[in-house]
């Protein structure tokens, strides 16, 4: 289920969605302290404002995170 794509479309104009292939960027993942996959990190103005990883990174948890963070802006 491509929910990441849906999230990107649903929040078009409010949110940018990017992807990191961890197998090609191991060092970078360590730098970002990404220890389990999938991992979703939310940034705003250069700051990390939210993170969900591994079992916590469910569609509903990510949707909830985005709603709470994006609608405040």
């Amino acid at each position: 289920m491509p929910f990441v794509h849906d999230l990107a479309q649903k929040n078009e104009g409010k949110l940018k969605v990017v992807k990191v292939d961890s197998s090609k960027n191991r060092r970078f993942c360590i730098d970002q302290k990404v220890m389990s996959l999938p991992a979703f990190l939310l940034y705003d103005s250069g700051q990390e404002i939210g993170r969900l990883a591994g079992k916590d990174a469910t569609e509903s948890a990510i949707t909830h995170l985005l709603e709470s963070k994006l609608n405040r802006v």
Partner: protein
Amino acid sequence: MEDVLGALAVVVSADDGKNPQISARLDRQARRLAGFFAAGDNDALVSTPLDRIGLKIRDIDKFATEMHNPEITEPAGSGNVPNTNYRMIGGLAVMKKELAASELNGFVRQYGMPGFSPTQGHIAAAAPFICHAREMILSGEIRRAMFVAKGSLFLAKMTKLSTACLLSWRKTEDRTMVADISKDNFQEEVLSASLPVLVDFWGPSCQPCLASCPSSTILLRRMKGS
């Protein structure tokens, strides 16, 4: 009616996230090749540059070659020049076995605009189609339009300038997603972005990632298919 002067300006800007995109890669290839071939060579301007950026002739939905407004220019001695140009492009597709010879007339109708300009004009210009192409791409009617600017016989004697330009629709994912973030573009794409950014760390061996991430699932399907 003769001696009509017209002007057309197209604003080419940095990516605004909405408008169709110009393929800089095709432009570079066409310019590079145009120097080696006779001016106006469709092979150098159409099929070879497309080939080099991994597209086939029929990946283009509309070709714009030499065009004039039939209300302004009367047909002259050289016959239906646009139609001939489209047949030449179709002929290249036949040579490359992308098209059956019997489909040539259909190709002219489907991929060209022979009715748009049934006349011989003095200055070859594909430009009149640019605004229409933009609208057609934005409305989803077509995905790619290619403009071929080659010197006419007359013009080619004065200038060697000829090039081709490809206007392309935006894939939905391009608009909302960037696929390859690494250490190198993280600052630019994420930290300096004007919008909040959700960064999806995924891996090819992580099943939940593949389920959540459309382009990697498509990739996987393709790999299985081949």
